[in-house]
């Protein structure tokens, strides 16, 4: 029995069940630790039980009942007495898988409650639903461990003190609340996918966890097309993971990626899920982004991409989401699909807007289009401007490389 492996892979699911059973995050965590301690003691001599997870849950539950009974002698809180009775009365998990699934879904909605700050929702979901340690979450988000620990403690206190329920929302509330959950999953994925600094292994784990959460949501809420769209989007983005970064750790643009490194099976699965989501009526932000990702993933070369369709989808996105990133992407799609000049004109128009002056992606996109048009010195200026504005190390390395290439072109003597 690989105890470490069990701990790593099952803790999240066991904890979810225990929190559901006990209605208390801290008590559940503490009792699970005690159950592990008993297991470490007993399993080597008595043998590993047939179902380690059920054994741990049952042991933790009995420990909790003991603890609550003991506390009662000192405090005599009627609430505690009622809780103990309730926990003791709940049937042992004979339908374990089913119970676990429901518990996990309830826990997701609790962790993603809109009354918690967004950063806390993300951290709490990773900690309690996915079972990722506080240290790992801190490393992934480049936040000191004590700060992250405090964020988690505050969130758990708020859940208890404000009376945030442990429940799947009513059908009337489900759509709004699910949006909040999807946002958390999306943020977890993006942190793993887009962050350029920090530990690569943990970032990959974040993507995998986000996809796992997406699958849980789609399994348990099968008619939610937006959840499907998000899962499809994540699968499609993640399918490019091995082509996005070069052996030297440099960012590789979509256009220049080695498409043979893309994971075909994952693209097929993602595309199928996106199509099903669109048939199911998904029309919002994840669905549109997923449709764009599907067009990219299924194009044999960058040139073969259905750029007019990509541009049209960005148009649709802009109708509900004002975002400079989307505007820049749309201009690039126009440049690729119609003409570089037309795309550049759109970017020039964006640049005249005061609020986008400091936006490094805009400068970088302009530089790229100017380079394509052979306007080398203007391109070099735009790269320098992008470099001055960019803060992300990987992006800066990429921009520096491009600038060096351009400078060689403009001055062949050097």
């Amino acid at each position, binding site marked *: 029995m690989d105890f470490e492996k069990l701990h790593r892979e099952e803790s999240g699911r066991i904890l979810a069940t225990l929190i559901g059973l006990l209605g208390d995050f801290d008590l559940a965590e503490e009792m699970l630790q005690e159950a592990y301690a008993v297991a470490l003691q007993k399993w080597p001599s008595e043998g590993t039980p047939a179902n380690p997870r059920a054994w741990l849950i049952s042991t933790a539950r009995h420990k909790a009942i003991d603890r609550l009974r003991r506390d009662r002698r000192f405090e005599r809180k009627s609430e505690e007495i009622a809780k103990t009775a309730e926990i003791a009365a709940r049937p042992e998990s004979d339908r374990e898988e089913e119970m676990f699934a429901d518990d996990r879904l309830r826990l997701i909605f609790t962790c993603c409650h809109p*009354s918690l700050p967004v950063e806390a929702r993300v951290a709490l979901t990773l900690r309690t639903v996915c079972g990722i340690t506080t240290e790992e979450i801190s490393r992934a988000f480049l936040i000191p461990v004590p700060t992250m620990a405090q964020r988690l403690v*505050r969130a758990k*206190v708020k859940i208890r*003190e*404000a*009376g945030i329920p442990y*429940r799947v929302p009513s059908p009337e509330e489900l759509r709004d609340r699910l949006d909040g959950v999807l946002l958390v999953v999306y943020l977890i994925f993006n942190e793993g996918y887009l962050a350029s600094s920090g530990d690569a292994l943990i970032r990959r784990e974040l993507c995998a966890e986000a996809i796992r959460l997406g699958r849980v949501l789609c399994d348990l809420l099968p008619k939610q097309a937006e959840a499907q769209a998000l899962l499809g989007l994540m699968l499609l983005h993640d399918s490019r993971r091995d082509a996005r970064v070069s052996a030297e750790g440099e960012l590789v643009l979509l256009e220049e990626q080695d498409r043979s490194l893309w994971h075909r099976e994952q693209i097929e699965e993602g595309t199928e899920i996106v199509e099903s989501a669109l048939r199911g009526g998904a029309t919002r932000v994840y669905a549109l982004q997923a449709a764009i990702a599907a067009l990219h993933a299924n194009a044999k070369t960058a040139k073969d991409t259905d750029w007019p369709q990509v541009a049209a989808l960005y148009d649709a996105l802009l109708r509900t989401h004002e975002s400079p990133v989307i505007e820049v992407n749309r201009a690039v799609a126009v440049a690729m699909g119609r003409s570089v000049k037309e795309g550049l004109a759109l970017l020039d128009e964006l640049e005249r807007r005061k609020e986008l002056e400091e936006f490094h992606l805009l400068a970088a996109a302009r530089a790229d289009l100017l380079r394509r048009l052979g306007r080398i010195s203007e391109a070099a200026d735009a790269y320098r401007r992008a470099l001055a504005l960019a803060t992300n190390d990987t992006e800066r390395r990429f921009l520096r490389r491009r600038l060096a290439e351009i400078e060689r072109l403009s001055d062949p003597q050097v």
Partner: protein
Amino acid sequence: MEYLLLIYHSEAGLGKMTPADTADLYREYGQLRDELAGKGKFLGGSQLMPTTVATTVRVRDGKRVVTDGPFAETKEQLGGYFLVNASDLDEAIAIAARIPSARNGTIEVRPLAVRGQAKPA
């Protein structure tokens, strides 16, 4: 659990309402109160007189400082409250969302502290 729903609204906006609209607003408030009271969920509540008749009291170094009005200039002022009984935060939020002023003002949902309740870790 007991929750205090603090109702913030724009006093200026309230002052500009027509008498008919004001009557409708009060009627809607009355209906919600009655409905909640019927279910044993309404523990108390009232509209407050406007901030123009408010007084602020502070004691500093043993000296009483009494000034006019509320503490700071804001767009919305505390205009009233509901004290309700709800099974959890979601129910309290659902009640808050039905308070007429939620449509143009803001409702702050605060659980009451229970004496002897475990202190935050």
